């Protein structure tokens, strides 16, 4: 049975087909959320929430985007909502703790904690998100705008400003 057939069955209320779909997309979603949050435990919580939301909203899925994109959209919005609700100080403390964990994991695997990762981790989440979606996942501006529920112009400016900020941190001598 291919994915489209499974999606159709899941929309019609087949629990087994939906379970299979969620199972197949679990790792993809988890990896996406780890890169978004840079915090594995937060990513895990968000995966759970995203899956519950998918179960609740599966009947609204209209196939206008890929199933994985639909899941990413839900996860992105849940993450944005979560970040808006949290206080800046709480966010900063959690992030610092999580980053130390990520740094430790990378050192364990003899991967360097590069300046690029460091700069990325310090970038505001609302700038990191569109950069990741645009350049890593290859989504178009209008798709990102839809995912983040913001105008296309804002997506473009956030990507531009995010890259400028990263460039300033990584190449302090580079021209503006």
């Amino acid at each position, binding site marked *: 049975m291919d994915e489209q057939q499974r999606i159709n069955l899941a929309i019609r209320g087949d*629990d*087994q087909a*939906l*379970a299979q779909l*969620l*199972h197949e997309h*679990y*790792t*993809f979603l*988890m*990896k996406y959320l*780890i*890169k978004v949050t*840079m915090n*594995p435990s937060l990513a*895990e919580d968000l995966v759970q929430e995203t*899956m*519950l939301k998918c*179960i*609740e909203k599966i009947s*609204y899925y*209209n196939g*206008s*985007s890929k199933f*994985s994109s*639909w899941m990413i*959209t*839900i996860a992105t919005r849940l993450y944005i909502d979560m970040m808006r609700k949290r206080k800046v100080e709480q966010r900063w403390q959690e992030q610092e703790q999580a980053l130390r964990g*990520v740094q430790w*994991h*990378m050192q*364990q*695997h003899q*991967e360097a904690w*590069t300046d*690029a*990762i460091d700069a*990325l981790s310090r970038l505001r989440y609302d700038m990191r998100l569109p*950069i*990741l979606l645009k*350049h*890593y*996942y*290859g989504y*178009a*501006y*209008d798709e990102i*705008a*839809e*995912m983040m*529920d*913001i*105008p296309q112009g804002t997506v*473009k400016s956030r990507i*531009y400003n995010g*890259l400028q900020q*990263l*460039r300033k941190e990584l*190449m302090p001598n*580079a021209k503006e």
Partner: protein
Amino acid sequence: MRKNKSDLNQQSLPNSSSEPHVSQEDQELIDQLMLSFQQMDQVIPHSTAPHVGHLEQLITEQKLAVRRRNQLELLCFFLVALVLIGGNTLLVMTSWTAFGIFQGVTLMAALGFLFGSYVRRKKKGDVRHAK
């Protein structure tokens, strides 16, 4: 799942006029960032996907919870409707003028709310498929 560069280029062809030009410096920076993301993907441990049977159980429980919540919302809706209809009937029986004023104010408030939400939605851009 991830789209590669060639896919990206092909997909973005129709919109190419709206794609801003990426400078050589920016491209180098982007490549560096993507490499970092890939490293994170490989290194950071994550839990494995739950067993399909466990997910089925989760789905059943969640659907049950949603059904209960919907039933509660429906009950609240009927209660509110009952109070409103009962109150309005009482108002009609007491004074037609008070009933007219109440209806007028309610209508204006509803129109104001609709207009407000329309303006807010236009500012943000409406997205239906993810709701």
